[in-house]
C-alpha cells in the first residue's frame, strides 16, 4: 500500500527510495526461486503471485502505473486464478511422490548459469549502453499517453493501433484453442 502512495506522488518528489527497490526486488527473486523449487504446485502458484505483485510494485517505481494495474488485473487476478483452477481440476496427488526435477537438471542448471553469466558480462561490458540517467515520466497522464499510442490521438491513428488489433486476434485464437482443446471429443 505504501509503495502505491509513494509512486503516486512521485511527480512531486522522487521518493522511489532504494529501500523499496531492494525490498521488492528481493521479494520478487526469492519467491521466483520458490516457484521453481516447491514440490507442491499450489505453493508455487502462490509464490508466483507474490513475484507478480512485487514486479507490479517495481512498475509503479518506474512511473508505469497503468502497466502495474494491468499486471495486477491480468496476471494476479486472471491468469493466476486460471492456473489455480487448472491445478485443482487436474488432481495431482501423484506428483507429490515423484521426483521434482528431470534427470537432466545439472545440464539445465549449467546452461542457465551460463546464461546469467552472459547477462552479467553484457551488462558490465556494455555499461555505456545503459546510462545511469532515469527520465522523469509524466505519471499523472500515463494512461492517457499509452492510450494515445495504442488508439491514436485526435482522429489520427496511433502508432500501435494495428498491432493492438492483431493482439486482440491473438487472444481470440487463444480462447478458441483453449475451448477446442478442453472440450471433450465426442
Amino acid at each position: 500500500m505504501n509503495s502505491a502512495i509513494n509512486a503516486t506522488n512521485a511527480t512531486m518528489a522522487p521518493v522511489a527510495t532504494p529501500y523499496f527497490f531492494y525490498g521488492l526486488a528481493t521479494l520478487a527473486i526469492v519467491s521466483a526461486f520458490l516457484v521453481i523449487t516447491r514440490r507442491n504446485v499450489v505453493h508455487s502458484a502462490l509464490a508466483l503471485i507474490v513475484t507478480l505483485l512485487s514486479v507490479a510494485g517495481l512498475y509503479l517505481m518506474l512511473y508505469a502505473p497503468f502497466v502495474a494495474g494491468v499486471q495486477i488485473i491480468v496476471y494476479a487476478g486472471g491468469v493466476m486464478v486460471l492456473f489455480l483452477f487448472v491445478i485443482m481440476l487436474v488432481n495431482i496427488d501423484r506428483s507429490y511422490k515423484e521426483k521434482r526435477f528431470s534427470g537432466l537438471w545439472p545440464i539445465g542448471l549449467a546452461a542457465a548459469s551460463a546464461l546469467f553469466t552472459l547477462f552479467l558480462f553484457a551488462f558490465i561490458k556494455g555499461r555505456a549502453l545503459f546510462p545511469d540517467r532515469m527520465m522523469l515520466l509524466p505519471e499523472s497522464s500515463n494512461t492517457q499517453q499509452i492510450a494515445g499510442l495504442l488508439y491514436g490521438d485526435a482522429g489520427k491513428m496511433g502508432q500501435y493501433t494495428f498491432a493492438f488489433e492483431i493482439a486482440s486476434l491473438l487472444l481470440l485464437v487463444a480462447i478458441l484453442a483453449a475451448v477446442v482443446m478442453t472440450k471433450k471429443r465426442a
Partner: protein
Amino acid sequence: MVPISTLHYLIVAAALFVLGVVGVLTRRNLVVILMSIELILNAVNLNLVAFSRMWGNLHGQVFSIFITADAAAEAAAGLGILIAFFRNKETVNVDEIDLLKW
C-alpha cells in the same frame, strides 16, 4: 546508497529470467513449466518498462502491455493443452510426453 539506475532493474530482470529458464529446463511438472514461462515473460516486461523509463518515452510500456496480452493467451492455450494432455495420460509430467500421437 547508490541511486537506483536502469542497471539495477536489468539485473533483477536477468535474475527472474534465469530462474524462469531454470524452471523450464529442470522441472518435470507441466504446470510449473508454464509458470516459469510467465516468469520469463515478466522479466522481459520489467526490462521493457525500465528501458521506457530510461528513454523517457512510453513505447516500452506499450510493448509490455502487448506481452501481457500474449502471456494471457499463452496461459489459456497452454493450460488447454495441459488439460487435454491430462485427460489422455492422467499425468502432467513432461517426461511422459514422448509420443507425437496417441
